[in-house]
């Protein structure tokens, strides 16, 4: 799939055996977005000419020359990738610290907002959850609720473009099906509020 973080255009894929990789979204052959490619076992193949890249991003097969062993210098520009707390994390920096995410959470949904992250955070902290809890902000790009030491809700924000935010919403392990539906509806209400604020120019 394609993921964007500001100007960084990234191809994220999972191999047949479950290994994750995140690369610059560009095949070194003809510049094609690798996110349009297809997974063949442990390799990602570019859609344009079918060049295979292994999990390390090294080109292993060029279909136009089936008998050729591609030089190892043909490789994608790989980024750091990790899976933690039900979320796939990518960093374009090689020395990024590991993410501090509570382990025992389950994904609810990812929702895209047409506004700034500040507006998303404002709306999320303004609108209480259906169970009455209020959401606390953790820095610019994350929010959570905690009651009696238990995580209720975790939200992490991704900013694909200056006025676009994708909120990845997760719930604590104790959440019932009803809770998940309630959280999902709450997120939609948050989006209506955040995007409306965007038009009015401020919270009222």
């Amino acid at each position, binding site marked *: 799939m394609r993921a964007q973080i500001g100007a960084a255009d990234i191809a994220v894929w999972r191999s047949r055996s479950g290994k994750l990789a995140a690369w610059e979204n560009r095949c070194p052959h003809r*510049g*094609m977005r690798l996110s349009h490619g297809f997974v063949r076992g442990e390799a990602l193949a570019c859609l*344009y000419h079918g060049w295979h890249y292994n999990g390390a991003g090294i080109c292993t097969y060029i*279909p136009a*020359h*089936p008998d050729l062993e591609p030089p190892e210098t043909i490789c994608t520009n790989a980024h750091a990738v990790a899976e933690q707390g039900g979320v796939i994390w990518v960093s374009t920096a090689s020395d990024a610290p590991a993410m501090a995410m509570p382990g025992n959470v389950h994904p609810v949904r990812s929702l895209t907002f047409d506004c700034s992250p500040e507006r998303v955070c404002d709306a999320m902290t303004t609108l209480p959850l259906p169970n009455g809890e209020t959401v606390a902000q953790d820095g610019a790009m994350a929010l959570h609720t905690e009651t009696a030491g238990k995580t209720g809700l975790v939200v992490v924000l991704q900013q694909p473009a200056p006025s676009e935010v994708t909120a990845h919403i997760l719930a604590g392990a104790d959440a019932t099906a009803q809770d998940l539906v309630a959280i999902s509806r709450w997120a939609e209400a948050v989006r209506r509020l955040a995007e409306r604020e965007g038009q009015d120019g401020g919270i009222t």
Partner: protein
Amino acid sequence: MTPLERAREDWYPVEIAGALAAGQTKATRLLGQDIVLTGTADGSVTVTAGGEDWPVCVAFDHVWTSPSQTPRPLFEIPEAQEKERRFVPCGVVRVKCSPLRAVENFLDIAHFPFVHTDILGSEPYTEVEPYKVDITDDGAEVIATKVKFFQPQAAKSAGGGIVTDYVYRVPAPMVSILYKTCPPKPDAQDVITLFVQPLDEETCDVWPWMALYDYDSTMPELIQFQQMIFLQDRSILENQKPRKLPLDPKMEIPTRADLTSVAYRRWLKRNGATYGALTDAA
């Protein structure tokens, strides 16, 4: 001479001949400039840009114009004189890519099994055998010969898979002509061309045209076949980065199968035909 000045010396297609009725106008763009086409009473077309009249000619079923009052001569396609062929203007496809990327993709056969799956190519028949690329003695054209590829359905008229022979000509920076095995007439070759109208450096209108020996298919069937192929190409062309064609060999790695593309890029550079190209490393 700047790349734009060089590009302004060529002819470009802007409409299918006869498509505009007398008095009917069409606004379009060429090399970043707004132009207006107007159908005339005698079935011809005038082209104006900012009050200035541009030269017009009709060739290969298309209306061509140029910002220059003294453009380079339009290239020739001798097969256009062969009356027994069917001439098929295929309409227009807008593509958000450099006009040069559109031409380069047309010169490429290695993508057939992946982009035109089960039509112009299919796995496991992916190998590109060595072929030959030359620049004509006068330097005017890139020519690729002895290109061979296995195709499940080489043309609308093809009954089954065949090894197709290809010859490619690039007679102008934004034009490519291919000659390929004609399935119903093995001693002759179908002609398929790509005429590209550069709206600007990163957007183009592509006008495919064909001169075929196919007397069985209807015009809509022939056009639909070509449009289907080109729309598959568009899904690639709009996802290549950067949108302009990089001429620095370090930016995109070629293989032996890309000989035509390598020659095309060098020929563009040598001719200063770099409108739509990225000439520095990004």
